[in-house]
Every structure is written in C-alpha cells, then in structure tokens.
C-alpha cells in the first residue's frame, strides 16, 4: 500500500508555487494603495483617479464592445461552418484542425505586420476604425479557441440524428441550426465566447502597432507616467481574466484544457 498522506516534498512544491504566484499579485495590490505624495501605504487615491478619468471609461468601453463584436462575428462565421463540416464534410475536419494551429506559427506580432500591409489599400472606414480592422484581426486571433470549443461541442452530440429528426418534421436549415443545434452546443459556444472576451480585453500587440486606443494600450500609457494607477489597472485587468475564466468553468462544469489558453502575450 502507498501512503495516503500529503507527501512532504509535495508540501514544499506547493508552498513554492503559492509564493511565486501570489507575491506579485499581493505586491501589486499594496503598490496600488501607495500615495503619490508620500510613496507610502495606504490610500485609495489611485482608484478614485481612475474612476474619474474619462479615458479609462472610453477605452474599457471600446475594448468591451470590440470583444462583443468579435464574439458575434466569430459565432456567425464558425458555428455554421463547423456544423456543415461535421455533418457533410468530415474529411475536412483535419484541415480545420490544422488551420487552428496556424496562429501558433503566426503570433500577433507577425499577424499585425502582415495584415497592416495587406489592408493598406482598404477604404478608411475599415482600415482606420477599430470596429473594422481590429475586430477582423481579433476574429482571426480568436479562431483556434472558438474552433476547439465548438469542435468539442459538436463531437459530443449526435448531429446526424438531430438534423434528420428536425428535417423530417419539416424544419428548414435555418430553423434546424437555430432551434435544434444551437441550444445543444450552447455550452461550447459560451465557452469559446468567454475565452474570446478574455483575449480581446487583454490584447495589446495588435492594438498598439495599429495605433488604436484600447484598454491595454491605455494601461501602458498610464504605466509610463502614473505607477500607482497602473498597478490598480493591472489588478483590474487580472480580475477581468478571472471573471471570464470562472464563467468558463461554471458553464463548462469542467476543467480547463490546454486549448483554452489564450494568446495575448
């Protein structure tokens, strides 16, 4: 029989892990309470400055609307595509799986260089507006996460039976997709959406190089001049990711898989 008690080496490793992960967060919290006059703890001045900064509201609103737009476009594009591939063209599944790996080889820093170049001649309502260029780029960025979530969702239901049952009752393709398939993959679609939210709310590389003012670029801007406010914003950003991941866990009722790791570094 093996021992069932907590092994001493496990305790040591867990303490090291806790220290490494928690110290930066606690330090940031303490840092955000420092006062700009005395450089000492504790005041909430940094937080009140942020709430009264209209740029804060403007950028966080832009990032939030952008993430909603990205989610909407992604769902509209990928739900029917993945459905059709699973139903009629299963031989194309590896192709989609391979395409979902492409963003690993083409990270944001390469993607933005390529896309800025590609869309250079595009009309300015698209190229110069965050809701055009940035949202399109984020759809590409979110594709793997959306795809893996939807793929798992479609695999777990009996697509053919559901489709046939719905059609033999006289439903059109649209009705089948909206009222039969969608409710069954709701959890997968929500999972992909929360990941997309976390990605877009934290994406800096593309927004900064295409000179849009989103929430992460605002943090960087504050970072350069007001350290204590930047600490408060960093914590807020951490809380947004927490919220998105907790929501993901709640709807998924399961563990996080490696495919659920978003790329915003």
């Amino acid at each position, binding site marked *: 029989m*093996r021992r069932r008690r907590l092994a001493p080496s496990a305790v040591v490793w*867990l303490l090291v892990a806790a220290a490494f992960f928690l110290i930066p967060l606690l330090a940031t919290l303490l*840092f955000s309470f420092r006062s700009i006059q005395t450089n000492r703890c504790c005041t909430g001045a940094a937080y009140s400055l942020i709430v009264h900064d209209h740029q804060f509201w403007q950028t966080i609103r832009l990032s939030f609307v952008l993430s909603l737009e990205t989610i909407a476009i992604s769902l509209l594009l990928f739900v029917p595509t993945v459905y059709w591939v699973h139903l009629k063209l299963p031989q194309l599944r590896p192709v989609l799986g391979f395409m979902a790996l492409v963003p690993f080889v083409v990270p944001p820093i390469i993607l933005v260089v390529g896309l800025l170049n590609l869309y250079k001649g595009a009309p300015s309502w698209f190229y110069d507006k965050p809701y055009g260029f940035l949202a399109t780029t984020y759809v590409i960025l979110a594709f793997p996460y959306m795809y893996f979530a939807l793929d798992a969702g479609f695999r777990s239901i009996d697509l053919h039976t559901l489709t046939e049952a719905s059609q033999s009752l006289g439903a059109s393709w649209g009705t089948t997709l909206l009222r039969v398939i969608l409710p069954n993959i709701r959890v997968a679609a929500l999972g992909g959406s929360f990941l997309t939210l976390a990605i877009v709310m*934290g994406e800096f590389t593309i927004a900064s190089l295409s000179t849009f003012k989103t929430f992460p670029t605002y*943090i*960087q801007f504050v970072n350069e001049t007001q350290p204590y406010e930047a600490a408060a914003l960093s914590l807020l950003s951490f809380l947004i*990711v927490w919220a998105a*991941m907790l929501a993901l866990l709640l709807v998924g009722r399961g563990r996080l898989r490696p495919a659920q790791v978003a790329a915003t*570094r």
Partner: protein
Amino acid sequence: MIVGAFKNAHGGATTEHVRQIVHKPYLDEYWLSIKISLITAGAGCVLGLAFAYAVVREGTPRFLRTILTTFSGVAANFAGIPLAFAFIATLGTIGVVTTFMRDHLGFDPYEHGFTIFGQTGVELTYLYFQIPLMILVIAPALDGLRAEWREAASNLGASAWQFWRYVGIPVLLPSILGAFILLFGNSFSAYATAYGIAANGIALVPITIGFYYSGNVLSDPHLAQALAFGMFVVLAVMMILYVPLQRRSARWMR
C-alpha cells in the same frame, strides 16, 4: 508579409532585407530571443512538472488540484502589459518586494546587479505564464501515468528512482518535449510583456519589429517584414517538430 519581406522600398524584388536579418545586429537579436525562450521553456517545464506532480500525486487533497489548475487557467491568460506592470510593482526599483528587502533585510538587489528591466527580469516575468501553461498541458499526461504501473514496479523491487528512469520519464517524454516546444513558441512570440517591462532595455526580435513598424524615426516596414518572416520560419520548424510529438503523447492519455 512574405512577399513584402522580399521587396525593396520602391516595390522591386530583392533579397536584401532577408540577407540583412542573418547579420548583426539582427542575428544577435534572434539569438537573444531564442536564448530567453529556451531558458524560460526549460525552467517552465521543470517547475510546472514539479508543481503539477505535487497536486496530481496520491495523498494530495483533490481540492488543491482544482485550485491550482483553475489558477493556472487564469495565470496563463494573464499576460502582456498588466503582467509586466505587476512585476515592476513587485521587483522594480521602488517595487514592494524590493523596498521590503531594502528596508527590512538590509539587502538591496539593485546594488547586486539585479534589475527587472533586463534579461533576468523578462525571464522571471515570462515564467508567470510559462509555468501555468506547463501545468495545464502536463496534468492530463501525469494522470495517464497509472498508479498500477507504480505498484507493479515496486512489487518487482524497483526503487523510486528506477521507476522514474525506466517507466515514468520514457512514458512522459513525448508530452514533455511537446510541452517544451509549446512553451518555446509561447515565449518566442511574446511581445506585449517584454514591451511593458523593458521596451528600450532589451533587443528582442518582436520588440525591434514593433519599433520598425510603429512609425518611429527608424520606420522600415520591409525590414520589419523580413524580421517577421524570420520568426515565422523559426516557429514553423517548431510546429513541424510538435505535431508528431503530440500524436505520440496522445497514446497514453485516457
């Protein structure tokens, strides 16, 4: 982008930019990028494996595992500017830990050659998303390491070391190598985190691309495209190595 890498400023075809990037100073930048990626991927693998094993092994209460994997999911996604700033607030010149060490322990790391705004600082910060990613990737593989194998090995008289040497490590090796490549790519392509910590202090390839592209005095989009093309080649090689490893490691997963 690939086409742009082979163009000159007037639109004609040239290999000039691509030839340029395999020479100094760009070669040094690639080397630094690769070095940092290798170090953080290596350290991330070892520490992530240790942390994951500590919660997966029997005897550790189940809820600790839930906490660690959930937290890893969040930490792996918490990167970029906010992460960079969290580390500056911790270990920067007036960071909380730095001032604590200076005032209470009488030890100033900045007088002993440490700085968050350099290579060590960037590496330390990268580990904050590398280790969680390793934990997420390797935990299912560790589950595949069945308790029966361990019992069988010890019934046959194998020591713990022999178990790891002849059973544990060989079974896990494809997963670990696959994870290493994933972590390498993860760190190699990171831009925002390094930018947030040390935009001017560290010459990494992504940072240089950013400088050449953002309309600075240095602006040279074709050179940036050539540099991006170089990154793409490195990552493509990694991907080609990754796919067969992924297939092999899937064999032992339940």
